[in-house]
């Protein structure tokens, strides 16, 4: 059912956990749907220097979380925003059709975390602490 790459990322997920004082945090999904993803980003000068995730969900949800963090670390936020669910799924050598919605979750989590980062940067409070 799952590609070897999905299994590998599911078994050994990269960047599990949270980041204290993250610059951006994105929480998407809903426990009632069986999938919750939280993305934590450390961002320096618009470059994502670290990313971690916490996920409640199926193997596809965990693998896409893991792959997403790998894909965005080292990228600028603009580059990261160009990562679509297709990018993530392809990087995992595909997902079963009924699991494609999990890759959307990953895309959404990245977006949400970056939105959070941007809203903080723009807010005076955030500026003050910088």
């Amino acid at each position, binding site marked *: 059912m799952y590609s070897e790459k999905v*299994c590998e990322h*599911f*078994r050994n*997920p990269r960047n*599990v*956990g949270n980041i204290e004082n993250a610059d951006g945090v994105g*929480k998407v999904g809903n*426990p*009632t*749907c*069986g*999938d*919750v*993803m*939280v993305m934590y980003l450390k961002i320096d000068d618009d470059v994502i220097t670290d990313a971690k995730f*916490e*996920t*409640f*969900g*199926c*193997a596809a*949800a*965990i693998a896409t979380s893991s792959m997403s963090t790998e894909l965005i670390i080292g990228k600028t936020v603009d580059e990261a925003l160009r990562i679509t669910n297709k990018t993530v799924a392809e990087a995992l050598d595909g997902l079963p059709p*009924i699991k494609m*919605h999990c890759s959307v979750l990953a895309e959404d989590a990245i977006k949400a975390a970056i939105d959070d980062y941007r809203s903080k940067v723009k807010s005076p409070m955030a500026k003050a602490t910088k």
Partner: protein
Amino acid sequence: MIYLDYNATTPTDKRVVEAMIPFYTEQFGNPSSLYTAGQEAKRAVDQARKKVADLIHASEKEIIFTSGGTESDNLVLRGVARAQKKKGNHIIISSIEHHAVLNTAKALENEGYSVTYLLVNENGQVDPQDLKRAIRPETILVSIMHANNESGVMEPIRELAVIAHERGVLFHTDAVQTVGKLPIDVADLGVDFLSASAHKFYGPKGIGFLYAKKGVRFTPQVVGGSHEGGKRAGTENVPAIVGLGVAVEIAATEQKEEMIRGRKLRDDFEEALLSAIPEVRIVSRGVERLYNTSLVLVKYVEGESMLLYLDFEGIAVSTGSACSSSSLEPSHVLLSCGYPEEAAHGSIRFSLGKFTTSYHLKKVLIVFPPIVEKLRKMSPLRDVYSYPPQAD
């Protein structure tokens, strides 16, 4: 492989397979044929029918062979609906039925029938008073499963059947999870129809039966030749029917011991599991359950992940019901019991069988706790939900 998914399917007993093989290659006649080879096949079918009838204390004419539990369920619901249309258009089922009953009821709703879905209490059992209230003059059939495939909870069939009959309503029970595992007497249960499936008790896949009490009327759903007393057409699946007969014989002789051995294995396992992993619940632990089934809820963790991590360790279990595991919906059984959706996503069913040993379960107790720990570490959920109360 440590197989702990016997409620999904079972390996076919070697004695069953051995009995089947000659009916593929040598005694391959069509039971409808008049010559010797055909009549021999017919005799084999008749003998298997007798064994099945004996197992559930029915008579041979009351046994209709079908292609499995799903077909049996469809046959009785659709068949009674059609046959009793003049009497009424109302059917009552429980909300925790297998999809074979649930989706047939829904299909009948689409055709204009009216269906009541009885809720269950937090232990997963139908309240007989609820059935009493639900029956209407136009009710034609009540269908409540004998034991639930996910939780193993037993429904109070005897009581429910009496209530249905007091109001002149036919009663069906889906006994796919109990036939072969428990002694069953249809007269004692008091049901008019009972469904079963061979592959759930070491018989072959692709064969099952419907018990239909003498005299009850239902419209056949697969017509053609005059097989099965005109109640289910199609060339008889002779090898599988013979195999079912042998599986039934084996169950009759080995069931009693297995009931004791299996229950002890399961109970010990549950106790050990509860002390090995915090924040775990065994669904409906306090009520009458099938002796082989443990439905385990693990907080903060999703079922498929646990299942696949166990698979990596060579342990086969399921989450939710096997049939719906390729869908994304949470277990309708747990939701019906009042569990929140996130809990319903986090179930693992261990279902034991006659090849399960205490060694197998010890292995599970070693590998499962670290899996849960690993997944919990990954999980963003903390204390956002709690379970309904339950008598443990």
